[in-house]
């Protein structure tokens, strides 16, 4: 064992003063045993740092690994839910139509007559020579019985027809519109 062997690590770490460092350096150049020791100490130092890095990486991963089962389970559950959804979900019950369900109710009551709602058809405006012709408010309203205008039976009872007439200044009819 050399006298310098106790200062090799400090020399490696550049912790020695100038003269002392130079002396150790000269010795290491000429001493194979100390060179091997320096190599060994450097390797141990590197391994120690790598060991610390690995320890920190392991602890970091371990922290993440705590979440991996939770996230994996959640993902698997989500996938299963999506895959199995068509088979596992019951069809939505369709409520019977009123027409289908109504007989059960109607049977307990007297049959009712279907009352049809009459929706009067709109009569398309008659084309007139004057395209800008419009229906003004009636200035004179004259009530005539239908029988006086149409043959008997042509118009059902209870139907009233309003005729809008537009007359020119000379008394000629310029527009006619019939509204039930």
């Amino acid at each position: 064992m050399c006298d310098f062997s106790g200062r090799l690590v400090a020399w490696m770490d550049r912790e020695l003063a100038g003269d002392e460092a130079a002396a150790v350096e000269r010795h290491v150049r000429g001493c194979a045993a100390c060179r091997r020791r320096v190599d060994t100490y450097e390797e141990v130092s590197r391994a120690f740092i790598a060991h610390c890095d690995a320890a920190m990486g392991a602890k970091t991963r371990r922290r993440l690994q705590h979440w991996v089962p939770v996230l994996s389970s959640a993902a698997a559950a989500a996938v299963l839910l999506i895959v199995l959804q068509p088979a596992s979900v019951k069809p939505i019950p369709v409520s019977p139509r009123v027409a289908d369900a109504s007989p059960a109710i109607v049977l307990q009551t007297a049959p009712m007559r279907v009352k049809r709602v009459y929706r009067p058809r709109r009569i398309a405006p008659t084309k007139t020579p004057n395209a800008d012709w419009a229906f003004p408010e009636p200035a004179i309203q004259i009530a005539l019985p239908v029988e006086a205008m149409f043959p008997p039976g042509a118009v059902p009872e209870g139907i009233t027809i309003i005729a809008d007439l537009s007359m020119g200044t000379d008394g000629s009819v310029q527009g006619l519109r019939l509204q039930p």
Partner: protein
Amino acid sequence: MSGDSLPLPLPLSCFAADSCEATTLYRELRKPLLRYLVCLGLSADDAQDVVQDAFASLHRHLASGGPQENIRSWLFRVAHNGARNRQLSYDRRFGKPLDPDLESISGEATPEQVVLEKEKFHRLGKAILLLTDSERECLLLRAGGLRYREIGEVLGISTSTVGETVERAIKKLAEKCNV
């Protein structure tokens, strides 16, 4: 493996008004501080908390006009004390300080090399556990880039004692590992 994978524990913006030195220190020392604390036995979360507390203390220290000399050893000392306080409270966590996962350092090595590497690290891990607390702390701080003088300031021992402790610890590891 990299400490950069850990989230930033402290927003750098809080240092913006203080000095660029604090920001530089944060970038330079965050990973060594985390590694030191984790290797002391803290969990990754606790290490993050201690580092955050240490930089918050630095922020207050600089804001109050505290001295800026030896700020690296100051930071490590604050973190060291914070780790010790947590270890006293949660001592059951630290039965096995260093527990390396060698997959991260094997890289693209062959299976035989991986086995040899694992064996070597297994021996190293056992040897590290045989070190005294002071020897382990000196080596950890040395691995963090601190000078012997700074290590002495962190641990409250003289520079010459640090040199002797580091030398003794390295020789122990070399002997136990048969390197």
